[in-house]
């Protein structure tokens, strides 16, 4: 199968959807000639023109709000937030407007927009450009949240997000933009709300999403050499959450290790752990549920320090060993 980078897969999804539906357009900072801060929209301006590849001023409240208004009128805007950390300067439009209006209007209108945002660390961008803030979004009814871990899922999930009638927060992993992976030719969709077993196993369920999925697979590979069989589940979407897939895996392995790049404290892993704990399977667990996440501090700049705060394959491996 052909290989594309994560960024190329995202671009292909946007281009295909813009060709398919004239209501789809794209807004964001420096997305035209520059091609976007991470090059995701390279050359899209040539094909679609400046009306549909709409460069914005550095004015997130204005253009995210404009996305809400255009979506109310039946357009399907894709909006690029250069760094997901910048939700701080447009959060009202996301939390109080985009997420609420369908409900508040008694179902009479909807807000079909996609907010693509570069999330996560590992790039030396320091504390205001490296966060994984998914829990800010997942706690808001009305929003959907997707976090693709591979180029294949990046394309399929983005196409699903663009066709969804709800606001979808699409958290791209900036460390993955240049990573290549197999992407099928032709039309396909990865439904939002469906997890994926990346590696089947018997001894422990390692539940993750985003950039950490590969780290979990690396840890599982290493343990396999010792005869430890870890199942790795990629959630792909956090809201809606595929709780059935989580419970199905944990009922089988009777051990759970949850891994995410976001700060562990009050992070999304707490929701996953609570789902497992609320299930009958709790009484059959062979070990306490383990969580691995970033330490409870701002992401530091120095490469040595930055590396130290995120989960590594070694920390994941250690957590798995503790649960055995």
């Amino acid at each position, binding site marked *: 199968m052909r290989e594309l980078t994560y960024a190329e897969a995202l671009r292909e999804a946007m281009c295909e959807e813009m060709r398919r539906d004239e209501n789809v357009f794209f807004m964001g900072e420096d997305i035209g000639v520059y091609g976007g801060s991470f090059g995701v929209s390279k050359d899209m301006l040539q094909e679609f023109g400046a009306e549909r590849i709409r460069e914005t001023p550095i004015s997130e409240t*204005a253009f995210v709000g404009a996305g809400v*208004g255009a979506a*109310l009128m039946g357009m399907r805007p894709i909006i690029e937030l250069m760094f997901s950390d910048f939700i701080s300067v447009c959060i*009202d439009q996301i939390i109080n*407007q985009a997420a609420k209006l369908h*409900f508040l209007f008694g179902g009479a209108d909807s807000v079909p927009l996609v907010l693509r945002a570069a999330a996560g660390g590992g790039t030396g961008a320091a504390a205001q450009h490296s966060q994984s803030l998914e829990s800010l979004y997942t706690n808001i009814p009305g929003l959907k949240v997707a976090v693709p871990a591979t180029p294949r899922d990046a394309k399929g999930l983005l196409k699903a997000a663009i066709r969804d009638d709800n606001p979808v927060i699409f958290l791209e992993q900036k460390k993955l933009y240049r990573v290549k992976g197999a992407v099928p030719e032709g039309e396909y969709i990865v439904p939002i709300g469906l997890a994926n077993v990346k590696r089947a196993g018997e001894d422990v369920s390692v539940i993750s999403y985003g950039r950490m999925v590969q780290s979990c697979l690396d840890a599982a590979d290493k343990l396999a050499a010792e005869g430890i069989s870890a199942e790795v589940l990629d959630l792909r979407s956090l809201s809606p959450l595929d709780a059935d897939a989580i419970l199905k895996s944990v009922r089988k392995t009777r051990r759970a290790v949850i891994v995410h790049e976001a700060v562990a404290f009050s992070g999304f892993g707490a929701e996953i752990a609570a789902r497992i704990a609320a299930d009958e399977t709790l009484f059959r667990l062979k070990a306490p549920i383990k969580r691995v996440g970033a330490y409870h501090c701002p992401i530091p700049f120095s490469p040595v320090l930055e590396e130290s705060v995120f989960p590594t394959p070694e920390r994941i491996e250690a957590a798995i060993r503790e649960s055995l």
Partner: protein
Amino acid sequence: MEDSAQLCEDKALLERLMERMLLVRKFEDAVLSLFKQGKLHGTTHLCVGEEATGVGSVFALEPQDCILSTHRGHGQVLAKGVSAKDMMAEMLGKEAGTNRGRGGSMHIADVRVNALGVGGVIGAGCPIACGVALSFKLRGEKDRIAAVFFGDGSANEGAVHEAMNLAAAWRLPLLFICTNNGYGMSTPLRRAVNDTDLTKRGYPYGIRSTETDGNDATAVYEAVREARAYILREERPAFIVEHTYRTSGHSKSDGNKYRTEEEIAHWQSKNPIARFAKFMLRNGFSEAELEAIDRRAAAEIAEATAYAEACPYPAASPQELEAEAYSI
């Protein structure tokens, strides 16, 4: 000021303007009465004294134009054609309400008449209105604008400024209307800003900015009519400041400690409805005709109130509400 010749000739329009302003006033009188009877919960923000701004402005728009209103928006949306019955049912939290009882006073919306919501977060409607206007531009709808209301209190919100810049930079068909009632809740404008001339807020963005007497329905109507033509002709946004005063409190719990009885009485004497009645009497209407208009408005609100009180409350279960958070 001389009475506008064009308006004077359109007797049907004058009659509708008066009827709608009276409808707004009587709607809010009924709301206040329902509150006092304990039949209405939550809060509400009345626009008593500001009727000419909402009704005069919206009457100058076309049915295809979209409006985004302020939290003090009863007048704006009633003028747009939202039914008083549906709205009163919403006030009472009934399933038959404009928002099926999910929104209440602060969120009245009816997309069928292009009333795209009353905003609970001040200033937040301005960026959304940019997107509404952008959709007209992208689809080549040449005779359609969006109009967004905000108050002097929201004029200092970043969202308003960001939206003004975006609308100007993108030449959006968007009318910004600042209803300047002199107070952001209890804070007088002079204490919230260094320069009380809010018209200047449009200047740095290159937006044509004008002001009008917001208690004069005819002046408001003509200012908005002219601005709409300007927006379509020049393909640029415009900004109007409408100076008015809210003689009612900020919300139902307002104790009016921040202003004097004299000040309120002064503005009550400038009441836009009484003023418009004088205008109509000068221009061919009789007292009897005005009384008939008043009776019609009163009857409509009495009917709306009786209807809304009789409507059932929503029956949705929490599980159904969870599902309603998303569009299927």
